[in-house]
């Protein structure tokens, strides 16, 4: 393994993050505060409890997941797309690195950034509502796995994208609806039975359910199934990336 290369890519990507530190920090704080004002206070005051949990606290795991998934995808996709766009990808392709090292560098940095944002949101949320974390280790594990798996998806999107419009397309048209419809702001038991069944085909449901379980010890789907889903998703993304580098799809002519 070329650990030096992994560290170099990681540091280079994190430097981009630190250059925009204020934006990286303020943006999640502001958006979380707005969510709590709108959903937690304005709407939440009319909803007493969901599954025995105050609505303000109930939406915390969903809010974190929403931002973490979006951040993981956007950071990783931009991270690998930008060198393609400006031509600096030549350096990666001509360096003594393999696909795993490139992925570890880019995905590791993107996951770290998303983890930072997730932590900021968690701290901001604590200013608005009282909540407890029933299973802290499981919470961290779910958070890490989510950051990692969606950063992998973002990496695939970044390689696939041929322009900036395509870079936004998948997150905008697929991921955001899946996250919003994945139970971020409600329990799927609140849906009519038919929609409950349809919702179970949404992979994000398993993530949010598992993550919410780590907070409140209550879940829409069994926790084991949540872990299996996120594990399977991570494996699928890794397999796709392995294929991309083996064939050189969209990166090596």
């Amino acid at each position, binding site marked *: 393994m070329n650990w030096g290369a992994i560290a170099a890519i990681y540091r280079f990507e994190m430097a981009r993050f630190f250059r925009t530190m204020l934006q990286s920090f303020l943006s999640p704080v502001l958006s979380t505060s707005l969510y709590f004002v709108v959903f937690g206070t304005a709407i939440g005051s009319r909803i007493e409890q969901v599954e025995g949990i105050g609505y303000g606290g109930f939406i915390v795991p969903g809010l974190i997941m929403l931002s973490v998934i979006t951040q993981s995808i956007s950071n990783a996709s931009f991270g690998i797309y930008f060198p393609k766009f*400006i031509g600096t990808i030549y350096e990666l392709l001509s360096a003594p690195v393999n696909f795993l090292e490139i992925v570890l560098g880019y995905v590791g940095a993107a996951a770290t950034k998303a983890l930072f944002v997730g932590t900021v949101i968690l701290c901001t949320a604590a200013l608005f509502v009282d909540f407890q974390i029933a299973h802290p280790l499981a919470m961290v594990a779910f958070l890490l796995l989510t950051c990692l798996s969606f950063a992998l998806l973002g990496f695939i999107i970044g390689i696939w994208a041929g322009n900036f419009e395509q870079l936004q397309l998948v997150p905008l048209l697929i991921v955001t609806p899946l996250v919003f419809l994945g139970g971020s702001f409600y329990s799927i038991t609140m849906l009519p039975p038919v929609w409950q069944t349809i919702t179970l085909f949404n992979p994000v449901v398993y993530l949010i359910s598992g993550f919410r379980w780590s907070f409140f010890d209550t879940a829409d789907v069994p926790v084991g199934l949540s872990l299996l889903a996120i594990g399977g998703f991570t494996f699928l993304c890794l397999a796709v990336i392995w294929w991309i580098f083996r064939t050189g799809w969209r990166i090596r002519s």
Partner: protein
Amino acid sequence: MSAMLSIRDLRKTYEGGFQALKGVTLEIEQGEIIALLGPNGAGKTTLISTICGITTPTAGEVTVGGHDILRDFRAARGLIGLVPQEIALEPFERVLNTVRFSRGLFGHRRDEALIERILRRLSLWDKKDAQVKELSGGMKRRVLIAKALAHEPRVLFLDEPTAGVDVELRKDMWDIVAELKADGVTIILTTHYIEEAEAIADRIGVINRGELLLVEQTSALMSRLGKKQIEVQLSAAISAIPPTLARPGLSLAGEGDVLVFEYDTQAERIGLTGLLNAIAAAGLVLRDVNTRQSSLEEIFVDLVSEETP
């Protein structure tokens, strides 16, 4: 000397069937400077990209320092530094960081003293904390060179390194290339500036339509293919070449006061003595005599035009 770079029957066919390389074979010795000349689209950049790992070869074999570029890619690429044709740099990154990144990418430990030496040599040390986007085009090209040198390559590819740069940087580049050669670095450069190839290359390869038309020592190529001209200035103009002087290669130029004789330096009988004797016998008085050797550019144009149907 041993072959540092060995290319055997290298072929590259892109999707759609375009054959960019049609079986290139070339051996380059350690410490040698070879210049690849060719028109746009000849296959120069594809050849470099394929050796460096940016493009996948369709067939053939390439070894760098004895390491196969596919089977033993880490060792092969670890020896290679690449200065690309296009200026491709992260605009918001600082000069020092981007050069450090390049060294790290090759798995080398940080060596601040080395990086300072490289940046100073390229007159970039004052700009080490500047963002790349603040630099001029010439400075950006220097950054590309610094990045390529950051991991101390043994084989350096310079793809059009002096395209669009000022005379000062071009001269500086030539000096750097000479220093690297003195350190035993093997250098392969592509260029449109033929005087550049003539000035710094040990050997010259001419590539066109994906084929290597020839590879020869620069001096040998010049003497083998170089035509010489002798210009004889007459003290008085003449209206036509006297019949006793007429011979292939001789023409009247200027305002009838210059005789131009083109001859092949490699020919068994050049005919110079005969020409001068005939001029004297014809009663013509000489005012001056000049000789001129055809430049590599003319040789190159001749070669490529011979190939073009």
